[in-house]
């Protein structure tokens, strides 16, 4: 099993969710986060004073998936979240050892 963590542009969330659901993802967790990458932040100006805003609003998606779906999901995710301009975000994939469904106590892929 894999844990996929993706940092994407907030306005892309609906599009990404629809595409992932279509590709067979059954659940995901979304949080509003702030951060920066190579893009760095942006500038805001209030009454002539410029502020360098380092942490840009982003959306973080977390999804646990079965190993055989990995290739398809990552392709779908990358395609749906891409605008082609700077600041599109990142996808991190890590191995997932244990998953437990709280209600039934099921473990492993059956609990996904």
């Amino acid at each position: 099993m894999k844990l996929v963590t993706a940092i994407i542009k907030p306005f892309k969330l609906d599009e990404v969710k629809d595409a992932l659901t279509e590709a067979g993802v059954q659940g995901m967790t979304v949080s509003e986060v702030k951060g920066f990458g190579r893009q760095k932040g942006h500038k805001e100006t209030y009454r002539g004073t410029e502020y360098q805003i380092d942490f840009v609003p982003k959306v973080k998606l977390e999804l646990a998936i079965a190993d055989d779906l990995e290739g398809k999901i990552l392709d779908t995710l990358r395609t749906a979240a891409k605008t082609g301009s700077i600041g599109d975000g990142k996808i991190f994939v890590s191995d997932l050892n244990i998953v437990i469904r709280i209600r039934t106590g099921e473990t492993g892929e059956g609990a996904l």
Partner: protein
Amino acid sequence: MKHSTFSFMWLLVVILSVCCGPATVWAQDGTPGAIDTGDTAWILVSSAFVLCMTLPGLALFYGGLVRSKNVLGTLMHTAIILCLISIVWVLLGYTLAFGTDVGGVIGSLEFLFSLGVGQDAYPGTGIPHLAFMVFQLMFAAITVALITGSFAERMKFTALLLFAVLWSVLIYSPLAHWVWGGGWLAEMGALDFAGGAVVHISSGFAALVCALMLGQRKGYGVESMVPHNLPMTVMGTGLLWFGWFGFNAGSALGANGGAASAFVATHIAACAGGISWMGAEWLRTGKPTMLGVASGIIAGLATITPGAGFVSPLAALLIGLVAGVVCYAAVVLKIRLGYDDSLDVVAIHGVGGFTGILATGIFASVGAQGLLYGTPGQFVIQFVLAVSTLVFVVVGTFVILKVVDLVVGLRVSSEEEEIGLDLSQHSERAYS
């Protein structure tokens, strides 16, 4: 104990002398004029308009500009000043400003506690003396509230209360007397229709002294101090604009052509100010901003205030256009100079009011003649008005702040500032 007995005796003597004295001394010709119902209706409504400028107008305008941890503290400044100064005005402020002139500098105590202020017409108008008193009350309240923008996010609440009362009695009342109450500037022929000097230069340059004496906010220039809610500020702008019609057109003290003229000039200057501020920042930083338009509208309104009843619509347009650019330049200059006038009271009200007083001396054409209409002397008088107001306010505010600092201290502690005024001063949060 001894002290309080003495105060009580003094109070008793004053009350008795006022109650038993001739309460209608002000009606100099002995027969009060007739009440005009239209005038009275307009001034009562205008008084409520000016209330709406202060709360919620100014409170929202300022509240949106601070960080979220200080929004209640900021709203609180305006709200409590409105309550406090209203009482101070009824008890003492009004008589110091509008009691019979004593030596050109102050009003007598004849209206102490507003005794003798009744339903008969105020001399030279068709409105009850009480209506005049309460209309002026609203001006007294908003002037002190305007200053709070300069020390936002860092003033100790007890210091604010003390400062507000002292400033209103010792600075505002004498100044209102000099210009509007028959004092030396009025005698000289100074023109200040609705308070370019009395309200805007005075609050604006008091704000400069406050900003310098309290010092920068912790983290100024390093941490982000981005306004927490600009839609709130824009709402406040709209309410200030709305209320300003009572402020300026109400200053005609009647429902008449003068009020209509001031109404139109006020609106045009507000629009022109919004446009020109936006243009100036668009040229300088590449983007037009909502806060820029809101600031320009207020700059236009502050600048037209002294001339509203004296200028043509075209002159108002010009004054508004100049206001937006000059006040924006003053904000940019503040950033260069590095003093932390947090919400730009100096740039918008001080510089706007000063510009407006001078502009009145140039463009006055309705009921008075300025420089362009053959009376260069008026410009000189306006200059004296602006400069003497500025000097009096700067010196007076400095002394008052020194006293307040000695008695209670001006600033919250560094830790309280870090936590924010809402929690540290008031134990509450705006957004939970």
